[in-house]
């Protein structure tokens, strides 16, 4: 029996490592770290069975601050490392931590394939629309015109929309939240309970190199008018007093913002969220004037690591117990006397 039997109930401190947190003062990463450390115990996670795997970036320093197993790998490769780990031990609860550069620039290909294979992982992409660790160059999610050390006259690259990319890659779970959101834990637990690859984009403020890019969305005052919190089966209402909503114009297939009560619009005109509707999720990835938060899409599909396991089991029952002696003799042999 192991020297310290897993405790019944864990607390936040059980998930906090002894390493001093070294992000810039005011960095959004602090809030995300706190949310994760607070949420894990409530989800029944145990430090020994939890693994955080990251690439390189400010965000990717995350594992050092968790008192779980952790692997700070190389730039962009965390999804591949995590896939190998899950194949070695599918029982582990594996979280991938990545950034908009780590996950969508150098790591875009691995993110694509981990999502399409639907490996049973939680993937948290910290999107601060900047390369933080390398001191502020624009990233694949930076808006056009972003002035940075490598784009003195403004970036001319069209940004990628992370949730859109994820759907295009065939993701079975796509959610969005932001660093200081009270509701970040909801997204975390939804992701953890999802079988397969759960992708969460987390809007994160980088006060040093990209301060305030999300203020309109996350600001206390401006927030309510710009946050559309999705709830499966519920009409898509938002606004300071929930007066606004989204209406579908079927011919143009677009969601338009309307005000309930104004020119004849009633609750019935408001689209009801259906997490399992792929096309609806697609429309929600990039709305004009408002940002959809919460679970955009959730539709479980075959899980890669499970399928691999099943196939191994199948092979075992079909071909029987391993027999090295027989293996070396399969096919034609002869004897020299």
């Amino acid at each position, binding site marked *: 029996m*192991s*020297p*310290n*039997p897993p405790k019944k109930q864990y607390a936040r401190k059980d998930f906090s*490592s002894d*390493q001093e947190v070294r992000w810039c003062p005011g960095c959004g990463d602090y809030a995300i770290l706190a949310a994760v450390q607070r949420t894990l115990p409530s989800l029944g996670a*145990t*430090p*020994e*069975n939890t*693994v955080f795997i990251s690439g*390189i970036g400010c965000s990717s320093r995350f*594992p*050092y601050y*968790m*008192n779980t*197993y*952790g*692997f*700070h*790998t*190389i730039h962009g*490769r965390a999804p*591949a*490392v*995590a*896939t*190998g*780990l*899950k*194949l*070695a*031990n599918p*029982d*582990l609860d594996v979280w991938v931590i990545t950034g908009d550069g780590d996950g969508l620039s150098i790591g875009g*290909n*691995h993110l*694509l*394939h981990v999502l399409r294979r639907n490996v049973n992982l939680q993937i948290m992409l910290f999107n601060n629309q900047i390369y933080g660790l390398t001191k502020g160059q624009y990233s694949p999610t930076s808006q056009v015109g972003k002035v940075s050390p490598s784009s003195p006259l403004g970036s001319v690259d069209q940004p990628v929309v992370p949730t859109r990319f994820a759907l295009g890659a065939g993701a079975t779970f796509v959610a969005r939240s932001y660093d200081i959101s009270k509701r970040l834990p909801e997204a975390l637990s939804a992701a953890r309970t999802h079988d397969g690859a759960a992708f969460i984009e987390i809007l994160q403020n980088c006060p040093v190199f990209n301060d305030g890019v999300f203020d309109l969305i996350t600001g206390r005052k401006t927030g309510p008018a710009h946050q559309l919190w999705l709830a499966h089966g519920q009409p898509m209402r938002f606004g300071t007093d929930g007066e606004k909503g989204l209406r579908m114009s079927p011919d143009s297939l677009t969601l338009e913002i309307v005000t309930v009560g104004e020119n004849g619009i009633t609750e019935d005109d408001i689209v009801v969220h259906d997490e399992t509707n792929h096309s609806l999720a697609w429309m929600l990835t990039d709305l004009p004037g408002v940002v959809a938060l919460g679970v955009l899409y959730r539709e479980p599909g075959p899980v890669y690591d499970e399928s*691999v396991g099943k*196939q*191994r089991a199948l*092979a075992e029952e*079909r*071909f*029987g*117990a*391993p027999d*090295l*002696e027989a*293996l*070396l*003799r399969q*096919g*034609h*042999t*002869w*004897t*020299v*006397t």
Partner: protein
Amino acid sequence: METSAASRAQPSPRETLDSVVIRFAGDSGDGMQLTGSQFTTATADAGNDLATFPDFPAEIRAPAGTTYGVSGFQIHLAAHDIRTPGDAPDVLVAMNPAALKVNTKVLKPGGLLVVNTGAFGKNNLAKAGYDVNPLEDGSLDRFRVLALDITKLTLQSVKGIGLGSKEANRCKNMWTLGLMYWLFGRERQSTIEWLHRKFAKRPLLAQANIAALNAGHIYGENAELPHGIGAYRVPAAKLEPGEYRNVSGNQATAWGLVTGARLANLEIMYGSYPITPASNLLHDLSRLKHYGVTTFQAEDEIAAVAAAIGASFGGSLGVTGTSGPGVALKSEAIGLAISTELPLIVVDVQRGGPSTGLPTKTEQSDLFQAVLGRNGDAPLVVLAAATPGDCFYMAVEAVRVAVKYMTPVMLLTDGYLANGAEPWKIPDLESFTPFPVSFRNDPEGFHPFIRDKETLARPWATPGTPGLEHRIGGLEKQEGVGHISYDPDNHHMMTKIRAAKIDRVAKDFPTASVDQGDARGDMLVVGWGSTYGAISQSVRTLREQGRKVSHLHLRNIWPLPEGLGELLRSFGSVLVPELNNGQLVKLLRSEYLVDAESLTKIAGQPFRISELVEAVQERLNRSLQ
């Protein structure tokens, strides 16, 4: 053909040969590889020693009849033990003009040439680039030509069975095989059984192929063969008793990995991205799921090695296989495994470079990349297999070293080993001492970088173990506790320790010793990898000529074995033949300051024995003057 003194006296009934080299050549569609492997099996049954070398076209399916569509299979069989598929063939089977065109230059003068005249129509002649039919312009007079319309003979032999002409035509290779069986006195039985198995679902095809096989054989028995062409016998060789099989290098590597993992009591996670000539490793291992093997066909080589590293972190044996360009892509991640000190095996089945190079040809030009091709001071262990069968033993050794020292190990093979097959004495698995891994599970005083005094290995503590939660990564770590450390002296120390750990592996290797010849002499020929057969055969020849030459073959490329320096200095000169532009030779010069000379061949082909013999003679004579 080497005719033994004994047999020279009276030619018939069957002339006895000590050894013969036969090459089957035809269109990709003619099934020459199958023919060759069947002849190999029958030859093994006849108790000869043998070595084979298949030679595919670079294109998947080149247009029929073209020279670049020619597929060849060479077999060397003998009454004594041999090490290579032989240099120039004594016998050439050419199923079409293109096959003849490509191979006439290599066939020995006086050699036996079997041609299928049925394929020598205008069209094929043109495709092969012949203006006039070589069978008619006397250009083949230097050979003993056996020209038969094999196509016609085959069709006759299967008439009545009711095959379509296309399928009937396909039996040509079996007819030819039957004839060759008769010529060299091989048994048909194993092939007949094989045909029954192969066409179990299509009995007509089985029947037809067997009919063709027998017809070819009968043709040999009855037909009046031209003067100078008779039947031969190649007596059985005196081989070490035991159970044998044919094995290719990739097959042996796959089995060696599985055996090594068994000895280490681990499961394997093999991450790979297909690439010639390493793909078969992935194919073979994907069929061994019930041996505790998980295969992961990754999106690219980087993901493949990254997944292997993740698996090793998780307590499986992470293995990744590829060829040169793939190793280049993996080099950053290999550095991560070195920095985090996780076991990892990287198999590099070398091919012609640089860049895409010559994907289907063999070469030894990744040695520098294997030993030195990473950013920073990033040492690892490099092993190299000498023969197809040796791939098995080297793969087991790679596993042993990787888990004992918690280090990446690079195993070098090449296209020649990967595809070439040789009779292989099936090893006695009992004779391997197991080396079961003991994972760390005691939290008492645990730190991820507290090392074993003897091996300098760090503990292997895997996720899921209560109380051992820890973080690793590619940033420099503080010796012992393993936290990130920017301390200058610590970095210096860690760099030295990483190097020392690898150097220490040398103590675990057999000390350097010659494979053939004395421990001192006029010249030491130092080889590594797939040149083993050619070097050892040529050194044997040279010693028979009384030359004071010895052969040392390195299986441990890095660290180099102990005692190597003294050995090198015990010889008048050192020659290092390599299938590259001179790589190992540079390591030896820098490590031991011996004036080792390089002999290079960068032609995508193995050394010919004659090449090596002449190179050595020429140098020794020079030094005599």
